[in-house]
């Protein structure tokens, strides 16, 4: 096994957090990722990969 610590943050890691995490607040301008017509291949795949509710092969374990 090798453990790699990346210095440069990969965009996909960032978007995992910025598009699927963070506090959701309805601002004056509402951004609903689901409403956005995502036509660009990369981004389309990205959003579905971030938002897809793929069942995990094992139950989610909580620390406590």
């Amino acid at each position, binding site marked *: 096994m090798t453990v790699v610590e990346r210095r440069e*943050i990969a965009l996909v890691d960032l978007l995992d957090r910025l598009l699927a995490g963070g506090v959701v607040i309805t601002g004056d301008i509402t951004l609903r990722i689901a409403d956005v017509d995502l036509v660009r291949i990369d981004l389309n795949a*990205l959003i579905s990969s971030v938002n897809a509710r793929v069942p995990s092969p094992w139950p989610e374990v909580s620390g406590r």
Partner: protein
Amino acid sequence: MTALRYVYALCFPLGAPLQEQMKGIGGAPTEELEHHGLVAVVSDVPEEDFAETPLKAHLEDLDWLAATARAHQHVIDVLTGVTTPLPLRLATVFRDDSGVRSMIEDREDDFRHALERLEGRVEWGVKVYMDDRQTDTAEDNITATKATSGRDYLRQRHTRTMAHDELWGKAEEFARRLHTTLSSHAEDARLHTPQSATLSRAAGRNVLNAAYLVARGRSEEFVELVDRTGDDSPGIRVELTGPWAAYSFTGLTEGET
């Protein structure tokens, strides 16, 4: 040009002023808007980019999205150095400061509870990859020994599939064990959807994509644990990212996914 107010994060008032003026999206200076004992970190963004229609169009532009996401992350990163911010989802925009203030008033209890719960904690990302190239190499070797008959060919193909399945099973088992161990050393854990290889451009297949909430003071220990947990499994790679602000643990994302 009309400006809108982009909100990056909420936090408790900073004890001391920031060392340096933070720059947000488009290089605009950030401001701390204090209201009801909470601070919203905001900056001006141009309406022609962040009004509903242009924003939708921009989101289809990966370069624009990347630049915006990095600018957002930069602000969160600087804040993480001095406090424990509650990061907001990308592109939370208000017409003016009074919109930001009423947002704070509407949910101040939620924000306060979340901030207290996350105080002094950071998020670590851990991903496990199964390195497909291992079996691909085996595949090449097999192809090199030329099949002499149909039966031979089928047997070789079978061996190849077996090798792949075995590695897959091993990687899953490894990921499950690692996740259990790390969860028991973290205060909370979240599983993200495994990343597609086309997007991450990472080698191999992403088996685990998890986030762990860890007290700052225990982070060194956690990182060492990630380093140590490996059992020299060939074909398996572990990647660590962080420390992140607790994006995956705000507990205030319902109504979205």
